[in-house]
């Protein structure tokens, strides 16, 4: 050996945590450069931002809204808003969190708008039933449709709390940060969403309610 450590040796030197830290630092550095390019009006920067976070933002929107014909427009709206407001991002290292808050804010606006419109318009909204394409089993698709049928009846903040915590799998502090509220408020929302989900399922989809309470599929009763 020429005195240098091989890759495997280097890897073995690094524990899991430090690898994670390295990735995070790289990420932060990448975000800082990205924000700098956007502020400098680099013509390729907006595409780079979309390439870096487009899929993440789309996923968040789908988590909150389900299968929805508005997703494409909302995805576009998030990035248009982000590009217009990038000057207001004080810490470039927090780009992802900032985009997350913006996404949740826009999703909440969409949910509230529909709720308002539901008061005025006689016909059902344009939300479409959950019916994902792909290879998922019919019972899984059915479950998805039924869960979102219940979620659609929840208040926007409760629906967001449920989606971020349980479907996206965020930790409580992450979900509170994404929702733009304190941890205590988020916990209150989440508790209310739990109750509302169960109550709604009990009234409108008793089979789902029973399954949630009794099926070993979701854990020990």
């Amino acid at each position, binding site marked *: 050996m020429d005195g240098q450590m091989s890759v495997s040796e280097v890897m073995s030197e690094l524990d899991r945590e430090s690898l994670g830290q390295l990735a995070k630092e790289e990420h932060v550095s990448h975000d800082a450069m990205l924000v700098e390019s956007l*502020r400098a*009006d680099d013509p390729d920067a*907006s*595409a780079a931002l*979309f*390439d870096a976070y*487009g*899929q993440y933002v*789309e*996923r968040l929107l*789908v*988590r909150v809204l389900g*299968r929805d014909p508005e*997703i*494409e427009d909302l*995805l*576009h709206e998030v*990035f*248009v808003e982000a*590009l*217009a*407001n*990038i*000057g*207001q991002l*004080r810490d470039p290292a927090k780009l992802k969190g900032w985009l997350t808050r913006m996404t949740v804010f826009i999703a909440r606006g969409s949910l509230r708008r529909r709720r*308002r419109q*539901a*008061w*005025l*318009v*006689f*016909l*059902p*909204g344009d939300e479409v039933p959950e019916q*994902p*394409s*792909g*290879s*998922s089993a019919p019972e*899984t*698709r059915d*479950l*998805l449709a039924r*869960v979102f049928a219940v979620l659609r*009846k929840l208040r926007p903040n409760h629906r967001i709390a449920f*989606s971020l*915590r*349980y*479907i*996206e*799998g965020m930790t409580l502090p992450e979900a509170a940060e994404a929702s733009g509220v304190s941890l205590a408020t988020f916990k209150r929302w989440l508790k209310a969403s*739990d109750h509302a*989900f169960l109550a709604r399922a009990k*009234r409108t989809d008793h089979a789902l309610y029973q399954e*949630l*309470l009794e099926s070993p*599929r*979701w*854990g020990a009763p």
Partner: protein
Amino acid sequence: MSKRFERLGAEVARTQDESLDDARRRARVRRRLSDTPAPPLRPPSRAWRPALGLILAAATAAAVLMLWPSAMRPIAYRVDDGEPSSAVGRLIVAPDNRSVPVRFTDGASVDLMPGAQANVSELTPAGATLQLERGVATVSVRHRKATRWSVRAGPFLVRVTGTRFRVGWNPPERAFDLEVLEGEVRVSGPGTPEQAVRGGAGLRVVPQSEIGAEPPEPKLKPSPARGEQAAATERARPPQIKARASSVRPPAQALELNLPPKQPAPVEGSVAPGRPPTPRTEAPDAQVENESEDEPETSATEQPLDPWIALFERGSYELALAELSPEEIERALWHADAGDLMELGAAARHAQDRRAGYIYSVIRSRFAGTEAAAEAAFMLARMYFHSGAPQMAATWLETYLREQADGRFAREAAGRLVEAHVQADDDTRARAAAERYLERYPDGPHATLARSVLE
């Protein structure tokens, strides 16, 4: 329980991720972003700037308030969820598919029913004047010491101090409708001294005379109590409109009498309500009937039939919705009898035609106090219920139950009221509705739900 939700959520996420594998949507958005001109960058926020702005704004507002007492400021209003406005004379148009709320800063509110048009023609510190150009509006004014509120509808003026009422104006026919729900209003019109109309009463004015005849005489008609079939029939009768100088349309009533008696259309399930006596098969006006008997063929051949009449005669309500022009539909709405309109409304609802709400609103206005009007309220409730607006559904269900406590939809309405309050998460009202339901219908189809609410 949260562990179960976490597992459920993870399962949902796995299924959703399959649809996220499709990159086509992202590609389209990426292309749209690159096609969109770069928005101007907003400058970094400075926390003190908004604060300074707020302080300055507050100081200015305080100065204005001190120099200009609130009692001197005209009230303002807000249309839908729009910005507060003090604009006078601006036309507010409610589309055909929904009502438009107008909220005033003195607490008054006006709901323009679908298709209605109005403008605020005057704003004062004590109230406003609303000019109803056409359609139906529900007005609610809070009583205060110096309230000066009025509604103008054509040549009619409704003065208000504190009340709730529904007013309708149909310019082509010069038909004026008023239904006072609470309180009292004072109404004046051409050739008529001002008169009071109290809660529970209605007023309908329709031109009844021939060309060049005297101006219409307002007839005060109390809203018929339940069971007063004769009065209900009278109100359900189409406006007594005859030929007028301004109208090129033939006198519809006379022509209708030339047609063979209509075969009742089949009633569709529980949707179509009982048909009130159809005026055209009776003899609503002896003079008209005699005229039609004297010259039946002449009038039928010389005057073309309004197309809606033939379609309604055949019971072709779906076809009417599809083929009639907006003007023809409008004429039908203001001439047809309540039974026809209920069936037209049902056809619109089944076809998910957005005019259904407007049709039922017209029925409520034209036939106020009748069984048809109450059933229109029930249909509106069902529509709101299915469109995910349980609070609005509950309001209309309560209206139906108030107007037809023993009506043929009473049991269903009482049960659906429980459902609506439950869906609206209004536990107090849900419990009250459940108790009322169980008291009347202990074995009814909603009894299980009602008991679960009370548990």
